[in-house]
């Protein structure tokens, strides 16, 4: 099992990650978590329930939009998608993280 990324970093990266995943298309909580798990090779270990407060906060900030719909299984499910404001926020997050990444790479050589 790969070493999990620290809690602080997981929390800090949750916003750009959620925005980036939703930029690929509408999704819901469980599927977003699956995607994070797969893309990170299991290194980003989220307590599953903690995703939802993040989603609700982004929704309150109008970066994402939510709607209730019926799933294939016939259950009521909340789906999220990126808003226009959200794509702008994602752009700025991206340049921030790339700056951090570039700096670290420059130091480490």
């Amino acid at each position, binding site marked *: 099992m790969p070493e999990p990324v620290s809690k602080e970093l997981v929390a800090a990266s949750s916003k750009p990650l959620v925005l980036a995943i939703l930029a690929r298309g509408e999704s*819901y*909580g*469980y599927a977003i978590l699956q995607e994070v798990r797969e893309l990170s090779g299991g290194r980003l270990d989220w*307590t*599953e*329930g*903690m995703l*939802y*407060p*993040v989603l*609700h*906060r982004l929704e*309150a900030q109008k970066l994402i939009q939510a709607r209730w719909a019926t*799933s294939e*299984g016939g*259950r*009521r*499910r*909340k789906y999220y998608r990126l808003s226009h404001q959200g794509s702008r926020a994602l752009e700025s997050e991206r340049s921030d993280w790339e700056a951090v990444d570039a700096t670290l790479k420059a130091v480490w050589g």
Partner: protein
Amino acid sequence: MFDLEVSVAAWKQALASRDGLRPEALDELEDHLRVSFDQLSAESSLKDALTPDERFALAARRLGDTRALATEFERADPSAAVRRRWIWMLAGFVGIHLASQVLLTASVIVSAITAQTHPRLSSVLFALTMLGGALALFFAARSGAARSALDRVARGALHGSFSTARTVALGGGALLAGTLITPLGRIVSARYLSVGRFGDDPSAFASPFGFALEQAVRVIAFAAPFVLLTVLSLRERAHRSDATTR
């Protein structure tokens, strides 16, 4: 025998009794829990190794501890907890008030049927409501959970101290306290009475000041618990946002 519906309902109940979660958030988490359980049940290796009970426990565990979850939700929407406390406290307040009004109406009906007034009956019914409210408060305060809740409130940590039942009981207690304190207003304002009787009639007072004084005491008595709840909740919020930014 494992019953998924019973397990989901019990899990939801445990989460619903905490502050900070709106019904919509509960529904969303329930959907997650069910998907997670279905996924665990679809994996053949797990299906053989674990009983349905164990698979459900695993799905719930992965979703997270209910207390930690509630705290995180509250942080995302701090006013939700305050709103919830207010609603339930108001429910208790109005509930006990309605109960006393029903009893009062009953005494009026009895008077109408028997064609004579029973001043004693309405006093007895009033005393019964008060006694019922006091008993409810007494039992709410006696439990160990309530004592540790009081302890947390004293330390300024309101979170998790306001279960639905306890908040409703507090609302009832607020009505009780207000009703008991109101006569104090009478006593304070009595020296402004022009006639030798107490009453809600403003003309019974020699000066409008006396009437206003009595009404003010009444309003303060009834509003104080709600104001206190709000102040404590806001203080807790300020405290918590300090802790998050640090």
